[in-house]
């Protein structure tokens, strides 16, 4: 891994020196002149690297160095590793071209993970958004104790996906879990089953549990937007004889289109990387049935010592996230303008 450490070393050097003086020689400017203070506004002066701008750039440096070292450089290294046969522990590796990508795209296990990611990512995004919007509409209608209800609706969102999944793991236990116990007691013992061990339903059980988290922020964003819909528009529509549904569809819905875009995009980004629930509830099992892409990368990279292969899967995940995020945004923004 000698070339990797060299890369880390290099990027360490992208500190103040390179950024501030590498491109242009330093040019002193009179200190205290007002034009110089607002470097960005100053279009008359030909010199671009005045003292003011250098100080402003220095403000960015600490965050930029950490961001480059922790996000950008490792991401690029992942792209590099995806063309190797590295196992994740030995010192050396060979470049094997696009073999990892060929293996991934022809692997049934990977496509199963893609299918699960789609079910969980899209499914939870849609279900959570629909429920959050309905709840936000109800909260918006409240005239009494709105704060109390807003807090009560948000409270469950404070419980992490990990904790929620851990509790559910025991609720769904085949022998002693409460779900099966209740089903047996209310007289439908046939409905009791091994919820997390039955490969035909396990992914839908995980989808159900996933929907128990993540909803709080979505609701708050919808509520904030609903409360900023001008009341005059709603009243005008009412006077024109529109009923509740028509008011919602023709006035409220177009006005909150921006919130729908933001919430769908955020929920999808969160959905593509669902991991905690899988690790806790099934560890990808039974077999590989309930693996998601995020879990697949983790398992292959660390559990099966195929870091190069896992890196290729990570690159594929990145492409899925970027294409779906940019695509959803472009589509929904267009819809916003039409609406």
């Amino acid at each position, binding site marked *: 891994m000698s070339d990797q*450490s060299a890369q880390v070393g290099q990027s360490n050097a992208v500190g103040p020196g390179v950024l501030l003086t590498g491109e242009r020689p330093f040019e002193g400017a009179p200190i*205290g002149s*007002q034009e110089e*203070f*607002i*470097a*960005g506004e100053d279009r008359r002066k030909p010199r*671009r690297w005045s003292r*003011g701008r250098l100080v*402003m*750039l220095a403000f*960015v440096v*600490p*965050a930029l160095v*950490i961001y480059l*070292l*922790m*996000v*950008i450089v*490792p*991401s690029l290294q*992942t792209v590099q590793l995806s063309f190797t046969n590295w196992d*994740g522990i030995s010192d050396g590796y060979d470049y094997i071209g696009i073999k990892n990508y060929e293996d991934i795209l022809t692997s049934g296990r990977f496509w199963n993970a893609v299918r699960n990611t789609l079910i969980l990512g899209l499914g939870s995004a849609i279900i959570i958004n629909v429920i959050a919007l309905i709840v936000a509409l*109800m909260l918006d*209608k409240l*005239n*009494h104790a709105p704060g109390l*209800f807003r807090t009560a609706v948000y409270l469950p969102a*404070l*419980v*992490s996906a*990990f904790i929620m999944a*851990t*509790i559910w793991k*025991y609720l769904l236990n085949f022998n*002693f*879990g409460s779900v099966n116990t*209740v089903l047996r007691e209310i007289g439908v013992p046939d409905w009791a089953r091994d919820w997390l061990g039955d490969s035909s339903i396990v992914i839908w059980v995980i989808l159900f549990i996933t929907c*128990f988290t993540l*909803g709080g922020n979505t609701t*708050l*964003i919808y509520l*904030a*937007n609903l409360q*900023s819909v*001008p009341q005059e528009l709603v009243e005008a529509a009412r006077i024109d004889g529109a009923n509740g549904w028509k008011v919602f569809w023709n006035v409220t819905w177009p*006005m909150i289109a*921006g*919130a729908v*875009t933001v919430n769908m995009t955020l929920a999808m980004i969160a959905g*593509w*990387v669902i991991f*905690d629930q899988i690790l*806790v509830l099934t560890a990808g099992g039974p077999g590989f049935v309930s693996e998601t*892409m995020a879990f697949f*990368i*983790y398992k292959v*990279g*660390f559990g099966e010592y195929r870091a190069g292969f896992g890196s290729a899967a990570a*690159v594929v995940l990145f492409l899925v996230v970027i294409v779906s995020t940019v695509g959803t945004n472009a589509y929904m923004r267009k819809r916003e303008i039409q609406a």
Partner: protein
Amino acid sequence: MSTTTTRRPFRLRRKESSERKKWSVGEVIVMIVLAVLVLIVASPVIYALLNSFRSYSEITIDPMGLPTQFTLDNYVQLFQQTDFAEAILNTVIITVGTVVLLVAIVPMAAYGIERVGGGTSRFLYVLFIAGLMIPFQVRMIPLVEGFNQVGLYSTLLSVILVHLGGAASFGILLYCSFIKGIPIEVEEAAHVDGAGRLRTFWSIVFPMLLPVTSAFVIIQALGLWNDFFIPLVFLDSSSAGTINVAINRMVGLLTSQWQLIYTGAILAIIPSIAIFAGFQRYFIKGMSVGAVKG
């Protein structure tokens, strides 16, 4: 969200009207539906809370029973039998350390990005925002190797550094959209009065950023406290881990001791609720600022 920026952020329509205290059947129904929904979503947590007061045998014999005697044995056992206390300490260090460092560097960086101007501004902004679309899984494998090489693997510092990089993008997005709305004249005045850049930032600009800072701190603190994946990857089994990692190990080691796992889950939730309860006002305001302006 350009469509929303011109609207008034909050309206006081209900307080203005004179018939504001009138109850309607519809509102009561809405309240009942909301209460039922909250109960359904919270039911697993309520179940865990009740069972954290019951012994192992009680839970196995009657999973749906209520606690008969109110005992704190499980809480005592949890701290005696596992290194849960150390896990709590680790989680506190990671959460507080990351939040402090984030507030020290991110607002300043966002201010720098906004005020540099021109193409440099745009480039830096896009570079940081691009991170929002890079999932942690994408950078995970090289990071583990990198920390191994510099000897930081399985230290709390490695977890903090990884969190810092991940949170920077969201922070820059939040702060930049807020700083855009701050008039530059105040800074000029401070400058004329002889304040340096750093002084101007910390004593003039930073106080104006307090609303967005409180929202940022709460969102991050909750996320850090609840995080499971990053400490799982970067803290090996020689460390006590964080609360969530410790609970996950209990699932493996003490498979049948559900009463301890329920107890650990409840202990993990309490600080989240405390953080939220303490700063709720700022949080909802901050979320609204982010949503309406973002």
